[in-house]
C-alpha cells in the first residue's frame, strides 16, 4: 500500500503533449477515479504510473520511493514497481488456464509451491473463481474474464492497483455487478486504486475522489459530491452529472443569502466566490410549480423508469433539464422555480 505523488509531470508524444503539468497527491488506500472524455490522457497517465511510459518532464513517486524522474533519467521498469494493472481488454494469456494466469505473478517471483497454491487459491476465492480454476480464458464469459484479470493483479499483494476502463467491454447488468466487486475488493484490501473511466456514474458510484481530466490536464480533483455540487469550471459542470450552465449577473451578497439575476428574475444561489458569472443548473434545482416565477415550454419528455426527464425551453430559448414523476405533453407551458444552484467563475 502506498500513496502516489506526481510532480509537474508532462508527457509528450513526438512533441505533442498528451499530459501537461500534472501535479497531484493520491493518498494511501484511496480509490481515485480518472474521468474524462476520450483522448484526454487518462490511459497515458495510468501507463506512466505503471512504468510503461516514462515522463517527458517531472517526477513520480510511489510510497517512499521515486520511480520516475525525467531530470535524473530514473525510470524503474514496470516489473520492479510492485503494482497491479487491469487492462480494458483483460489481457489474459489465452494459452494458460485460469489458475496459471492467476499464479503467474507468483511463478516469476519464485515463491515456494505451497505458498503459491495457498495465495492463488485465496485470490481465486476472493473473486469467486474457485470453480473455474481449470478452465481456459476462452471458455469464460466477459465478467468472469474480468475477474480473472482482477485475481491476477491481486495475487501478489501490489502496493497499488491501476485499472484502465476495466468495465468498458461489459454489458450494463454485468457492469453494475462488477462495480460492486471492485468496491468490495477495495474495502477489503485497502489498496490504493486508480481507476480510469469515461463513465461519470461509474466514477461517482465507486471513487473516494475523482480527477476530472481534459486535454491532458487534471481540471478538478475532488470527492464525487463536491464535483457534482460545486463544480469549478464549465467543463466539469457539463461533464459531471446532467446540468446546464447559464450565465448570471448582478450578484448580491447582502444578507445571509447570495442572490443573482437570471433572465431578469432574481434567484438565490450558492457560491464561495465574490462575483461568480455562471451557474450550474441540475434537475434537482428545478421544481415545477404553478407559481414558478419562470415560464418554460416542454420540448422533449423522456421516460427514465418511474420518472421523466423534461427538456424545457425558457422564454429566450435556453434549454434546461428537469425531472418529474409525471408525463407532460410536448408544448405544455409550465411554471418552474429555481432553488439555490451552485455558482462559479469562469472567463
Amino acid at each position, binding site marked *: 500500500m502506498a500513496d502516489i505523488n506526481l510532480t509537474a509531470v508532462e508527457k509528450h508524444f513526438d512533441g505533442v503533449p498528451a499530459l501537461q503539468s500534472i501535479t497531484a497527491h493520491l493518498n494511501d488506500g484511496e480509490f481515485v477515479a480518472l474521468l474524462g472524455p476520450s483522448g484526454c490522457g487518462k490511459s497515458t497517465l495510468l501507463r506512466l504510473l*505503471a512504468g510503461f511510459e516514462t515522463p517527458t518532464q517531472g517526477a513520480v513517486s510511489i510510497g517512499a520511493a521515486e520511480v520516475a524522474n525525467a531530470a535524473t533519467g530514473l525510470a524503474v521498469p514496470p*516489473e520492479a514497481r510492485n*503494482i497491479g494493472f487491469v487492462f480494458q*481488454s483483460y*489481457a*489474459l494469456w*489465452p*494459452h494458460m488456464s485460469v489458475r496459471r494466469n492467476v499464479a503467474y505473478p507468483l511463478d*516469476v517471483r519464485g515463491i515456494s509451491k505451497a505458498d503459491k497454491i495457498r495465495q492463488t487459491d485465496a485470490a481465486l476465492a476472493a473473486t469467486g473463481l474457485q470453480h473455474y480454476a481449470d478452465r481456459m480464458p*476462452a471458455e469464460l464469459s466477459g465478467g468472469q474474464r474480468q475477474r480473472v484479470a482482477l485475481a491476477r493483479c491481486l495475487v501478489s499483494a501490489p502496493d497499488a492497483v491501476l485499472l484502465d476502463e476495466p468495465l468498458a467491454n461489459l454489458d450494463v447488468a454485468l457492469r453494475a455487478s462488477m462495480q460492486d466487486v471492485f468496491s468490495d475488493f477495495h474495502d477489503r484490501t485497502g489498496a490504493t486504486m486508480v481507476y480510469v473511466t469515461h463513465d461519470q456514474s461509474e466514477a461517482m458510484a465507486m471513487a473516494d475522489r475523482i480527477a476530472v481530466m481534459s486535454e491532458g490536464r487534471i481540471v478538478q480533483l475532488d470527492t464525487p459530491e463536491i464535483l457534482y455540487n460545486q463544480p469549478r469550471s464549465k467543463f466539469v459542470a457539463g461533464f459531471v452529472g446532467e446540468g446546464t450552465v447559464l450565465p448570471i449577473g448582478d450578484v448580491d451578497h447582502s444578507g445571509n443569502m447570495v442572490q443573482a439575476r437570471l433572465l431578469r428574475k432574481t434567484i438565490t444561489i450558492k457560491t464561495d466566490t465574490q462575483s461568480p458569472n455562471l451557474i450550474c443548473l441540475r434537475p434537482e434545482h428545478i421544481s415545477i410549480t404553478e407559481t414558478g416565477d419562470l415560464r418554460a415550454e416542454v420540448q422533449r419528455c423522456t421516460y427514465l423508469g418511474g420518472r421523466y426527464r423534461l427538456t424545457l425551453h425558457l422564454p429566450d430559448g435556453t434549454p434546461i433539464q428537469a425531472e418529474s414523476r409525471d408525463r407532460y405533453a410536448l408544448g405544455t407551458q409550465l411554471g418552474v422555480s429555481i432553488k439555490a444552484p451552485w455558482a462559479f467563475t469562469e472567463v
Partner: protein
Amino acid sequence: MLARHKLGGSRSEDRLLSLVLLVAIALTLAPVLRLFSEGVTQGDHFSLALMREVLSQSSTHTALLHSLTTAGFGTLVSVVIGSTFAFLVALTDLRAKVALVFCLMIPMMIPPQITALSWTQVMGPSSVLLKTLGIAPPLGAPQPLYSPLGIILLLGVQHTSIVFLTLRAGLRAIPQEAVEAARISGAKGLRVWWQIIVPLCLPSLAAGTAITFVTALGNFGIPAMLGIPAGYVTLPTLIYQKLAGLGISVLAEVAVLAMLIGAVAICGILLQRFFQSRQRVHLVGATAHPLAIPLGRARLPIEAALWSVVCVILVLPMLGLLATSLVPAYGVALRFDTITLSSWYEALFRQPATSRAFVNSFSLSIGAALVLIAICLPLAWLMERNPTRLGHLFDSLVDLPYALPGVVLAIAMILLLINLPFTEATLYGTIWIIFLAYLARFLTVMFRPIQASIRQLDPAMNEAAQSVGANLFQRLRSIILPLSAPSAAAGAILVFLTAFNELTVSALLWSSGTETLGVMIFNLDDSGETVMASALAMTIVLVVMALMGLVQLAARRLPKGVVPWQT
C-alpha cells in the same frame, strides 16, 4: 443433401459457389487425379498390384526416409532462421527493417536449382570466389554440400522466408497488453518471450512450418543438384531416376511415387490443422500499437548478426554466381585478365530464345496472377460463407499440385490435356498448357492469403451491402474485392515472383517458341554452358530484385499491408 450450416448464404451464392468450385477443382485436382489413376490401373482395369510392388521396394523406403529427413530437418533450419528474424523484426526496435525483410525475401524468389548452383560454386575446390581469394580447398577435396547436410541447409535457406512471413503476420496480432501484463506481473527478459510471446504465436508458426514442410518435400532442384552426386535419393529424385530408366511401366511407377509424396504432404497439413484446432488461441483486444521491445545495448550486435546471416544466405551465393558468370569457361579462375562479359552478351543478346523467354515468363506470371485473383476471391468468399463438404475437401487438397514435384505435375497436365474431348484442337505444345499448369500449381499460393483475410472480414460488411439492396455481383465487386485487396495483392506478388522463374513445371511443357526463363537456364546448364547459365540466372535475380524494388517504390501509394515485406 449435404448437411450445411449456413450463414445466410442465398441461392444465387449456392449456384455461383458450385460453378467456381467446379472451375477450381477442374484446374487443380483434375490433373492430379488423372495422374493418380495411372498408378491404380493396369491396362484398362483397376489394380493395386503395381502400387503394392513400388511401395514395397526398398529404394522407395529409402527415398521416403530421405525425403522425410531432408524436408523435416530443412524445415527445422527454416524455422530456426525464419522465426529468429520474425521475432526480432516484428517485436523489437531494430533499424532498417524494410531492407532486412527485403533481403530475406529474395532467396525464395530464386529458383532452387540456381540457389544450389550458386552455393556449390561458392563452396567447392573450383570456387571462383575462393580461388580468387586464394583459399580454395585442394583438388579432390569433397564438395561439402554434396551430402544430406547440404540438402538440409539449402532447403532451409530456400524456405526461410515462408516461415518468416507467416510468423511475422501472427506476431503482429499479439496485443501489446499481453506482454505488458506479464511485465507488470514481474516477468522480465527471456521469460516474457518464452512464456508469453512464443505460445501466443504458435498457430502461425505451425502454419508456416506446415507450408514449408510441404514445399521442401516437393523440392526437386536442391536434392537433384546436391543429392544425386552424393547418392542420396529423395522421392523427387527417385521419380527422376524412374523417368531416366527404360522400364515400360514408368508412368505408373511415377504416379505411385507422386501419390506417396501427396499423402505425406496431406498428412503434414492435417497434422498442422489438428494442432491449430486444439491450440486455438483467441487474442482478445485490439492491437493499438504493435510491440516494439527495446533491445538496448544488444541492438547493435544483434543487427550485425542478422546482417551477417543475410550476407551468408544471400550475398555470398550471389557473389559466387556473379563470379562464375564473368569467366570464359567453367573452372577458370577469375582474374583481371580472365574477366569477360562474353557469356552475358551471348546469353542475353545472341540467343534469340532469351528475349522470347523473358516475354513468355512475364506474360505467364502476370496472367496467372490475374486469373488466380479472379478465381480465388469469389471462391474463398463463398466457401467461407457457405461451407459445403465439397468445399472442405477442396480446402484440404488444394495444396497438392503445389506439393508435387513440378515434373510430376507436368506429366499430369500432358496426360490430361493432350486429347481435348470433342475437338481436334490441342493445347499441348502451346503456351496455354504451361499457363494452365501454373494456375493449378499456384492456386494455393493465391488462395491461402485471400482465405485468411476473408476469414477476418467482418460479415457485417457484406450484410450491410445486402441490406441496402446490392446483389451478389455488386457486392463482390464493390465490397469484397476492395476489402481483401491487400491480401490479394500479396498473393499476386508471390505468384508473380515464383512463376517468373519457375522451372520444373515448364521443363516438360515448353516447346520452341514457348520457352520460359527457368527452362532457358536449365537447358544452358544441361548442355554444359554453366557460365552462360550463371549469367542468365544473375540477370533474372537482378530483374526480380528490380521488380521488387518497383513494388517497394509504389508501396506508399498502395493500401497498407499489400507489400509483403513492408513493415
